[in-house]
C-alpha cells in the first residue's frame, strides 16, 4: 500500500517537473510574447523603412477624378491621393508594393488603390533597385462620401526567405504591420509637400 503510494507520488512529481520544464522552455522561446501590443506610431515627416522599401510620405489630398494621373476613375468620383517617394531596397526590380500601405478607412477598404508613377502616369510599373521614385496611391471614394480630415495608414513589411517551403525559391513572405501613420488630408493636388 505504502509502496504503491510512493510510486504514485513519484509519477506525479515526474509529470509536474516535466510540465514546468515544458512551460519554461516555451516561455524562453517567446510563446508568451505574442500578446497584442499596440503598433508604433510612425512619424510622417521621416523615412520609413520596411525590409523591401524606403518610404518618404510627401502629401495626402482629396481630388476630383478628372485628370488624376490618368487613372481610370468613375466620372465625377472623388479620390483620396497619397503621394510618397518609394525606393526599392532589394537587389531586383519589383512591383511588390500593393500591400505596403493599408488605408484604415472603413469606406475605402473594399477598393484597392490605383498605384501610379507620377513621372509619366504609368500604372503600377516595376520599381528598380536604388532608384527613388515619386508614386501616388489613389483610392476612389464611394459616391456621396466626404473625404476624411486625416488619412490613417498601416505600413506592412514582409520577410525575406532564401528558400520557400513549396518551390525552394527565394521570395518575400509573411506580411506583418510595422506601425501606423497619420497624414493630414489637404484639398486638391496643389497642397504642399510635408517634407522636401
Amino acid at each position: 500500500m505504502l509502496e504503491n503510494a510512493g510510486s504514485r507520488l513519484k509519477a506525479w512529481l515526474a509529470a509536474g517537473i516535466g510540465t514546468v520544464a515544458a512551460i519554461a522552455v516555451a516561455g524562453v522561446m517567446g510563446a508568451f510574447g505574442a500578446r497584442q501590443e499596440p503598433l508604433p506610431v510612425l512619424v510622417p515627416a521621416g523615412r520609413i523603412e520596411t525590409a523591401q522599401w524606403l518610404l518618404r510620405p510627401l502629401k495626402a489630398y482629396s481630388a476630383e477624378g478628372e485628370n488624376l494621373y490618368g487613372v481610370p476613375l468613375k466620372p465625377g468620383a472623388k479620390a483620396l491621393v497619397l503621394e510618397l517617394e518609394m525606393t526599392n531596397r532589394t537587389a531586383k526590380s519589383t512591383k511588390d508594393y500593393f500591400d505596403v500601405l493599408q488605408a484604415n478607412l472603413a469606406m475605402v477598404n473594399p477598393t484597392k488603390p490605383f498605384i501610379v508613377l507620377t513621372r509619366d502616369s504609368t500604372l503600377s510599373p516595376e520599381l528598380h533597385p536604388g532608384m527613388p521614385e515619386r508614386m501616388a496611391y489613389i483610392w476612389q471614394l464611394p459616391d456621396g462620401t466626404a473625404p476624411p480630415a486625416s488619412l490613417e495608414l498601416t505600413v506592412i513589411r514582409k520577410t525575406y526567405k532564401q528558400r520557400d517551403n513549396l518551390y525552394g525559391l527565394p521570395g518575400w513572405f509573411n506580411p506583418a504591420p510595422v506601425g501606423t501613420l497619420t497624414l493630414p488630408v489637404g484639398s486638391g493636388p496643389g497642397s504642399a509637400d510635408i517634407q522636401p
Partner: protein
Amino acid sequence: MMRKLANIVLLLVAVSLCYGLQLSKPHHGDLIGPIPARGKLGDTVVGRGFEIRAEKVEFARKLKADRFGDSKVLTTGGIWAVVTVEFAARAQSTTVAVASWRGPTGLTYDQTERLSFTDGLLPVAIDPGLPKKARLIFELRPDEASDAVVLVSEKLMSALDSQAEIWLGPVAIGPDGLPPGTVDTLDMTQPI
C-alpha cells in the same frame, strides 16, 4: 552496453552525413534554374530555342517614344540603357519575352514597363530563318552601367531552359557620373 553505444555512434554518423549532404549539394532552386548560354557583345549566343546577338549599347538621359499615338519624352531618375539585339529562332517559332540587366554589384534591373506600346520591344515573336531586330530598354543607376550582363530568356520562370548571358564589357564613367557616350535624347520611334 557496447551495442547501445554502437547504435548511438551510427546515428550520429548518419546525422552528420545528411547535414553534410544538405550543405554541400545544390538546392532544388539551383538545380531547376535557368541554364546559362554565355557570350559577349557582338557574339552570337545560342540557346535552346533562340539565338541572340547584341549589336550595341547606348545610354541616354531621356527617351522619345510614341504612346497611344502621341509622342512623349520619358525622363528617368537614373539613365536609360538601350541594347540593340538581333534574334533568330532555331528549330521552331518562339517568343522571347524577358530581359534584365545585371550590374557589377549584382543589382538586377528588369526591362522597363514604361514604353509598353513601342515597336521593337519584347516580347518579340521570332521564326526560323527570319532574323529580327529588337531593343532591350532598361532604366538603371549610372553606377550599374559598367561590366553589366544582359540576361535574356523566353519566359519569366525559365526553369531548365536556356538563358542568354551577354557580357557588355567595361564602360568608363565620366566626371558627371554618366558614361561619356550618353546622349540627351534617344528617339525610339526611329526604325531599328
